[in-house]
């Protein structure tokens, strides 16, 4: 009997739908068809719900656990480490948010973090506002939370160049739809924005304009989507990573105040000779790409500016199969 009963992760029915009906079919399709096991990095929580669900598909876990609010702030990470060992999966657990550990290269206990193999499955949660900065352990380095994505992509490329395989990876990214209006407005009016982002934003802005200031909590989802898409593409371009964006899934977590955005991305390292990565679908922001989770399951929910087309395939496997030939050949992911 364990004396530790607290859990760092509270599941909810909507998240369960996303995990089981959206993520799992796609992960299993790739696992079964291409005979691969995932090297997982993420925030699985002390109960390891997703790791347990995908246990047969996972060979290694790199987990992050937050400091517990209890007196023993290490209680969650201890429980996570214990459960990981009970589960018998090779892995390591770091104390601290993944953004902090990845950017600083060490966890709260000083355990050094260094990626030395390509991670094939990221399950990342940005529970805090994505535009907020990290309060680092040593109070010396300040970085925006989403900078961690840049760091992991850089590390991925380095590991890929070192080992030559595997050449693909999957990112599951969950973000709270909460951002400062002034901040996002400033970003979206920048002249550095991609042409497709600008065009999408001008349509959306005319229908659903962003206020001058104040927090955007659960509203103007299009702006966060545009912001993330533009940022991510910038990050992928530098290490030459081609990416398939799946429709973004919106769902409410425990709090009804702000919905969560869940992004699934299939990424492939580019070769040196093809320096320009490909992004699929080509007109991602404007084609229908928003889904919503409610009690009936996953349904289409258009953002302003998206083309409404109810005949689109809602299955993640079907979505992937439209672009599969680019990512595979002869039954292998290349």
């Amino acid at each position, binding site marked *: 009997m364990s004396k530790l009963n607290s859990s760092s992760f509270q599941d909810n029915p909507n998240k369960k739908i996303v995990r089981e009906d959206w993520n799992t079919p796609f992960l299993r399709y790739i696992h079964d068809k291409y005979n691969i096991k995932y090297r997982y990095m993420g925030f699985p929580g002390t109960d390891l719900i997703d790791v347990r669900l995908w246990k047969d598909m996972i060979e290694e876990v790199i987990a992050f656990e937050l400091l517990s609010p209890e007196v023993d702030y290490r209680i969650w990470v*201890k429980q996570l*480490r*214990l459960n990981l060992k009970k589960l018998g999966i*090779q892995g390591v657990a770091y104390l601290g948010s993944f953004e902090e550990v990845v950017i600083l290269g060490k966890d709260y206990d000083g*355990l050094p973090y260094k990626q030395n193999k390509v991670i094939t499955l990221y399950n990342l949660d940005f529970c805090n506002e994505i535009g907020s900065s990290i309060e680092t352990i040593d109070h010396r380095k300040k970085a925006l939370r989403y900078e961690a994505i840049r760091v992991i992509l850089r590390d991925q490329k380095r590991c890929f160049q070192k080992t030559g395989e595997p050449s693909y990876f999957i990112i599951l990214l969950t973000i709270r739809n909460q951002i400062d209006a002034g901040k996002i407005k400033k970003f979206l009016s920048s002249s550095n924005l991609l042409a497709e982002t600008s065009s999408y934003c001008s349509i959306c802005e005319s229908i659903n304009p962003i206020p001058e200031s104040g927090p955007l909590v659960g509203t103007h989802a299009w702006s966060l989507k545009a912001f993330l898409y533009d940022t991510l593409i910038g990050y992928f371009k530098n290490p030459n990573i081609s990416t398939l964006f799946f429709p973004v899934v919106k769902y409410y977590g425990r709090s009804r105040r702000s919905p969560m955005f869940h992004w699934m991305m299939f990424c492939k390292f580019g070769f040196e000779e093809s320096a320009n990565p490909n992004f699929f679908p080509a007109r991602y922001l404007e084609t229908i790409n928003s889904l919503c989770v409610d009690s009936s399951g996953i349904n289409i929910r258009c953002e302003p500016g998206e083309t409404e087309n109810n005949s689109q395939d809602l299955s993640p496997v079907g979505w992937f199969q439209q672009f599969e030939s680019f990512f595979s050949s002869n039954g292998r992911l290349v």
Partner: protein
Amino acid sequence: MPDRVKFSKQDIGGEILPILTTGLYRNKLDALREYIQNSIDAKCKKIELVIDPDTIMVEDDGAGMNFDEAKIAIKLGISEKNPKEDVGFRGIGIYSAYNLCDCLDIYTRTESDTNCNLIHIDFRSARLELAKDQERKKHNMPTNVYLEKLLENIVYVDVDKENTLTRAGTRAIMSDLLDEVYDELNNWDKVVSYLRDVVPLPFREDFKYASVIQEKFKEADYKIVPVTLQIGNIREEITRPYYNEMFDHGGKHPPEFFEISDERQHYGFAWVCVNDARRVLKDTTLRGLLIKKFGFSISDRNYLAPYFARTVFHRRITGEVIIQNEELMPNAARSDFEPNSTRQAFIRTLPKFIGQLSTWANQIQEKDKAREVLADILIVLRIINKELPSIRRDKERLLARNNLLYSIDLQLKAHAKTLKDIEAKDYEEAAILLKECQDFVKSALIERQKDQKKMEQRVVKSIQREAAPATESEKERTKDIPKNILDLLEIYGIQTSEEMTGFLKLLDENYLRVTFSDEEYSEMMDNLRDYLDEQVEL
């Protein structure tokens, strides 16, 4: 007859648990050794050891324990293991984590089990109970923590409802590690070094003699167990410490195997590698032989040093003595064997074994020495052979080379017998080269001797000339000192063709003038004049 005292459950206090565990397991890492021993005794094929700041896991794919065996395993000081076959047999090892962690969970199942079994030990509660009891004692209250009661409260065996293990084997998880063990357990080098001393690990794959030694292990039924160690995010297969670069030249000599026995019994065998240069091994940690029993190191590599007549051999070799005799048991501190008659007999065989080993090492190194000498000689002879024509006229240098060749001759003769056996071709080449060089030097020195005589004659003549008035021809000769060969020919009225004149000019300017000093050139002109004078006289 003395009265027998009857002991009851209340006569054994709970304090015996920390006394036993602290006394037996002085090193914090000893708990790892105990669980690894259990894995080896369970005939596992591999072991995984994962350490992080909060938990330790030792997992094996051995036979595992069924529910009844798990209940026996928790008994204190009672073991069904056979000391002749098994490493752990004292029945205490399962409690060795007392000073390491708060909680121990052992998940185990056999091939035929339908469920996984769980042994749980709550060391934290035991420590709290004992601390409370100490407080009671301070207030003069009687103890109420007896060993039996304590164990009943902290240990249980149950069916694991979560069915954690789905195949045969054992997974021991020590959680909530004590703060004081953190540094030691998270020090990679320290843990690896410790494991090398307690686990029969395989050799590094790139160690060139790994397979031949492991083949011998197989023949001798000495099992090795691969261990994967993970500390934090570093994960590696742990191996024995031997590597090719520990030898000066990458390890030219394959290992030799020695059986260690006397007329009454067999004690074990040894594998030994000697350095491939006549020098001590560079890596001081690997010099000498390590005695191993069941993977445990007995003492250190200096244990056998006193048995070497020439102690330098102890430092030039590396290897292991694998003890297989059942009566030779490591003492608790692993510093020696338990004292018994077998140990005494084993000690008596050591001088003979070390003697054989030294003879073998000496022969190998003699051959090495002969090879080294031959290689050096060949280099020197090739240089001398190339140099000799240019020093043909330099008597001093010829004499120096003559001395050197004499000394080479002596060295070659000293190793001739060995070299004819092991390096016949190179030896023959050296002998021929030596002879050629010696002949050349000899003939050049004879020439120089003749020159010396001529010089002496000229000096005598010159003195005579100075004493007597010069003749007409002598006057003529002194007047016409030739500046070069063409000049000389002109003085003597010798006519040559145009081509020959060109050739002689070229020879004179580009070779003779460049090669010889003024003094040598002038001496050469004199010789030519002597020759031409003789021809004229004829």
